């Protein structure tokens, strides 16, 4: 009996050991899981514990300026020590930087790399990204190009879309079957959109195309056709012929929908248009050197008696070398035919050392009109290249820009330096 009990006790002891080991194993696993979870979430779990507010933390409407944090560190921007010499040095720096800028006037400067956007003022817009995956698990990417940013009266915009299997950065683009269609959409500022981004797709209600960008209202559908290049599609439209765009100035974009790999994706790109040009350049009427600079006079027909930006580029006769830019405002007080004078500052012409005749190209500008609570830029352009009479580069002045405006600005800096406090408050 005792032996059996012993035996039974032994068996029970073994079973108990097994259960004990099992419980220990489960506890060990639980501890490991807890440690892993803590490690992954970092301090998040710690933050869930109740803690007293940090020392000096504001309660209710307490002024934050009065508070300080742990270890004596202020938790707000501390007041710095004053250093009048620092202020004087920095103001002198600004003065020197201004003088360097003001060698040329703001309205005419060398046609250097900082001015290229005046030359390429109506660039094509290309954008794209990978947007889904193929059955093989490869990226599917698309690229959409609008051939211009602005289309004038009667002018077209062509959108071209290309789709390939591969990353967007791939140079070898494997063609893939796709569909594309477009929508011209106008911005409606009265459509309110929930600001917060929902964390889950189902909370967005209608998803996909139906729920896309509700503040942009479709006004015209576009059909994309096969284009000349392999596996591309293109659509051409005339913004000034779309009724919704000609009712009044509108903020517009083209949304190109691309369907490939079972997924439909939008590529949206804003553009500008003009129902009618606000200003029409008719012809160059004269050119001359005035006060050492090149003055060009055009005859223009002003349709809107409103301030217009005017930009133009001075080139050599062949149009190969850009020499100077003009960038200023023309403020007609009445509509109708009248002169428009632009001036290319002499110093960039002399410095470039290229003799005339010169050609003036890429003459363009814009007028801003207010509609629907937005300012709308209505561009205009003059595509003809006009030629001047012959000049030698050395006929133009090489002097720095000199004007009351510049003198006044320099005097402001000098007064600031002169009146700077000598000691810290």
């Amino acid at each position, binding site marked *: 009996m005792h032996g059996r009990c012993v035996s039974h006790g032994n068996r029970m002891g073994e079973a108990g050991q097994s259960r004990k080991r099992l419980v220990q194993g489960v506890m060990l696993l639980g501890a490991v899981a807890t440690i892993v979870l803590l490690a992954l979430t*970092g301090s998040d779990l710690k933050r869930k514990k109740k803690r007293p507010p940090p020392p000096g*933390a504001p309660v209710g409407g307490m002024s934050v300026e009065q508070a300080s944090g742990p270890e004596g560190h202020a938790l707000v921007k501390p007041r710095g020590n004053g250093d009048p010499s620092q202020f004087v040095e920095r103001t002198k720096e600004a003065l020197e930087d201004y003088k360097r800028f003001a060698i040329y006037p703001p309205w005419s400067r060398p046609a250097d790399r*900082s001015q290229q956007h005046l030359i390429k*003022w109506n660039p094509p817009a290309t954008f794209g990204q990978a947007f*889904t995956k193929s059955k093989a698990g490869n990226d599917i990417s698309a690229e959409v190009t609008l051939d211009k940013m602005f289309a004038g009266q009667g002018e077209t915009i062509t959108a071209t879309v290309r789709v390939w299997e591969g990353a967007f950065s791939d140079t070898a683009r494997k063609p893939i079957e796709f569909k594309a269609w477009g929508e011209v959409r106008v911005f409606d500022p009265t459509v309110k959109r929930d*600001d917060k981004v929902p964390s889950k797709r189902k909370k967005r209600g209608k998803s996909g195309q139906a729920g896309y960008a509700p503040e942009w209202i479709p006004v015209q559908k576009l059909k994309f056709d096969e284009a000349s290049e392999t596996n591309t599609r293109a659509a051409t439209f005339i913004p000034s012929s779309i009724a919704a765009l000609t009712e*009044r100035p509108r903020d517009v974009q083209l949304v190109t929908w691309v369907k490939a790999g079972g997924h439909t*994706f939008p590529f949206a790109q804003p553009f500008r248009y003009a129902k009618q040009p606000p200003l029409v350049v008719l012809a160059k009427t004269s050119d001359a050197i005035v006060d050492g600079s090149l003055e060009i006079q055009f005859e223009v027909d002003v349709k809107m008696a409103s301030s217009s930006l005017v930009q133009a580029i001075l080139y050599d006769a062949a149009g190969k070398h850009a020499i100077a830019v003009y960038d200023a405002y023309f403020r007609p007080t009445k509509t109708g035919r009248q002169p428009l004078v632009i001036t290319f500052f002499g110093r960039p012409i002399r410095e470039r050392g290229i003799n005339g005749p010169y050609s003036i190209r890429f003459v363009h500008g814009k007028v*801003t009109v207010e509609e629907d609570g937005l300012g709308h830029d209505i561009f205009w352009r003059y595509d003809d290249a006009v030629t001047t009479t012959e000049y030698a580069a050395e006929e133009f002045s090489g002097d720095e820009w000199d004007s009351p405006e510049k003198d006044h600005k320099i005097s402001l800096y000098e007064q600031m330096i002169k009146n700077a406090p000598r000691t810290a408050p």
Partner: protein
Amino acid sequence: MTNRCGSLLTSALAVLIILATAAPVEAGNHILYMHGRSHSGTPSYALFDHLGGWEHHTFTYNGSSRLGDSGVRSQVNGAMATYCRGTNSCVVACYSAGCARAKLAFSDLAAAGTPASNVLWVENIASVAGGTELANYTSKWYLKLIARIFGYYAAIDNDIKPSVMRGSYGYIQNSTPAPAYDLAGNGNICVRFLIFFKLCGNERMPGGNGDGAVPVHSACGYADAGSHGSCCDGSAKYTNHNADQCATHPRNHTGMYAIGTWRGSVRMGTTYQPTPDDAWAGDTRPNVDCALDDCDAQSTEPSLAGVLNVTNLAVGNVALMDNCNTCNPSTGCSQCAAFSVYHSGYAPTAWASCDKNSCSNYVCDKAGCRWI
């Protein structure tokens, strides 16, 4: 066309009448603060320190509204015409999209024949005037990445694509009438998915160079939208753009706010200096591509060690918290930097505190004060 012209003239006339009948402004020195996307003002602790003799002027426009918004333009143009002309001189401090608004204002005033001729310099803090790629890219289910990163749609996202800022709005790029000092960050902003993955803004920037929201090509005033690792790589810039310093700052976009306050204060003759930080440096979680992976079906958890959006403090204003430092257990945490918090009608009350092991956020609002 004549009617449109008439409305523009009417607006200009309204501004003139307001200016003419307003109380006369004494001659003086002024600092104008132009806030960015998602902000509705500039908090008092973000104002520059100075040696005396300067007046601060902040705005109340909705920072998320369209760049061409007539009301915002009117407010900004009116202030610049008042404080940056005549017997007044001004410094313009702009942050993020506020710098695009500043450039547009310079252009508008030039168009009106009343240029902001007395601007002494501009402090360009993390400027998005050159556009951000985050406004181009969208997730699989059509959310712009900038909205995904910050948690909010903003109408201005339609305007701050690089192709728009350098194309349709290209004419404003050379409008700055005084030296602009550019400040750029190299930190990142990420949101976390399912603990194991993260989505970061800099993945979409050329060369990965950005502050999580704004690429270096924009913040440094470069005339191209390519990859730039510093503000002094010799590439062409738009006119009047100068580097405040060549190296980018180890801060993300919200952290740059504190950097801007510091550098602006230094230029005004004071020596305040915050500590640098980048909470995402060394984070090895793999990145997720929300154009290909279905992030939209997953909830996002803004990391409390990154940008934290605290909403609904009042009237829909958004508070953006700066990063806390990643804390070193042996040396502890350094001070958390200044905040971008706006809380209408309420003292700014979002806070961060560091102890040895973590940075935490303590918020006070109408519901009370609590750790989050």
